[in-house]
């Protein structure tokens, strides 16, 4: 289950980034500054998410909290059509120039969801380490899955999804998927690594 979530998290980030370029183009064009803004904001969101997700994971980690980390961007995705055009049009009217305009609108639209999607990786790593003792290979597997998900998300979105559906409906469906996959987490229980007596169910580390 956690593997599925990590994979999908990675896929959603990159899918969202590809779609982001389509969201920005009407008001800000497709200049190199638009791509630069978009990519840097996603990377900023991911690095903040890795950092914050790691710290959050150290405080009583649980599958329910992981579910919340996924539900929040899901909610942003589903409601995306309600605010994206308004925010983009508003920043357009501010006329901040060809660099600041797309940078600011990217911050508003893409930063918060990518923080949460970034937090998925360290949080799941912590959960897996609690229940398994081979932490090196566990983290390696999670990284690989996340990035493999990103590749699939990129290719699927740009080669296929964008040709069959509107950008906003793709984002909404992705939001629905995020919320659906988070639901089982409320019912699953963490299984702590049995040989390690220092670790308790629920993941509290002494």
């Amino acid at each position: 289950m956690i593997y599925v979530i990590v994979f999908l998290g990675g896929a959603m980030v990159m899918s969202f980034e590809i779609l982001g370029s389509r969201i920005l183009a009407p008001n800000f064009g497709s200049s190199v500054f638009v791509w630069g803004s978009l990519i840097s904001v996603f990377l900023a969101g991911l690095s903040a998410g890795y950092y914050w997700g790691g710290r959050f994971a150290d405080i009583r980690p649980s599958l329910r909290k992981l579910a919340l980390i996924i539900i929040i961007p899901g909610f942003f995705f589903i409601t995306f059509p309600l605010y994206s055009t308004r925010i983009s049009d508003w920043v357009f009217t501010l006329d901040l120039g060809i660099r600041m305009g797309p940078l600011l609108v990217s911050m508003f639209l893409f930063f918060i969801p990518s923080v949460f999607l970034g937090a998925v990786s360290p949080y799941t790593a912590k959960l897996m380490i609690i229940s398994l003792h081979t932490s090196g290979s566990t983290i390696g597997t999670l990284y690989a899955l996340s990035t493999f998900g990103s590749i699939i998300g990129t290719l699927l979105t740009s080669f296929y999804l964008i040709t069959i559906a509107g950008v906003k409906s793709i984002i909404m469906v992705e939001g629905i998927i995020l919320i659906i996959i988070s639901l089982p987490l409320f019912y699953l229980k963490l299984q702590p690594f049995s040989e390690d007596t220092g670790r308790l169910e629920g993941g509290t580390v002494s």
Partner: protein
Amino acid sequence: MRAFIVFLAFQMVMIPGWVSASHGPSDHVLFEKNSLYQFISVEENSDKRERYILFNNSGADQDRGIQGGIYIDDPETLLFEYTRMSFVSLAFIDREPEDVLFVGLGAGAMPKYFYKYYRDANIDIVELDPDVLEVAEEYFYFSEKENMKVHIMDGRVFIKRTPKKYDMIFLDAYRGDQIPFHLTTREFLKEVKKKLKKGGVVISNITAESKNQYFWSMIKTYWKEFPLRSIFRGENSRNFIFVAPMGNPGLKASVILTQAENVQASKGIDLSQITTWSWDYQKNNSKIYRVRTLTDDYAPVNLLQYKKMK
């Protein structure tokens, strides 16, 4: 690791392309550069005495990403059929054009030609890639003038931002063989309309069906925004020119043909391409009813460049 994927995503905007007309093969290369947006090259065919500007040329095919060009010995004459077809639009306005906008510079042949005949017109040109302007100046005898300026920015952003209105707007922005998606949508055309004077004309260069999977979607999108429209079909090239005059519903074909003769007689501009007028091109084809209109939300035009055409 993720940075690499991001890099791949960034690379997606660089699209190799093909050509708008069968010219070449060229026999020597004068200039090559990887610009911010594309691989630009300048090549010549010394038998035909022609020089071309190419974006993302693939090298293998002789029909490769030619974006514009000139006759080496006669740089003032329009080399490509579609550029000559574009000026047929002069027959669709009932006055001397004062403010004119070109979206996409290429070799600069069209604005240069226009400037030659309309010295007093204010000409704006929008080009995204600064290197294209340098190449046009260096190899294609293009130069900015007091009343002919190049703006280095995205075409759609320029149109949204400009306080000016135009008599004529020429849409000819290609990257490789494709129009950037945000310059094909209905929302974009609405923005273009807002920047047209009453009785102004939009002229769009659209690649033919054989090389453009979204040809009918493009035509349909224009059709929805412009109630009056005329399509000109290239005889020797795979280009269509879409001319859409604003307002003036009384505009009759006979008036347009007379106007074409007048412009030709008074200015000396060659409007013989008016014969490429395809009267009922869109009406006779039911495909237009089966395709989707292009919108900001749905416009996959620049993503399927490798897809095989039927």
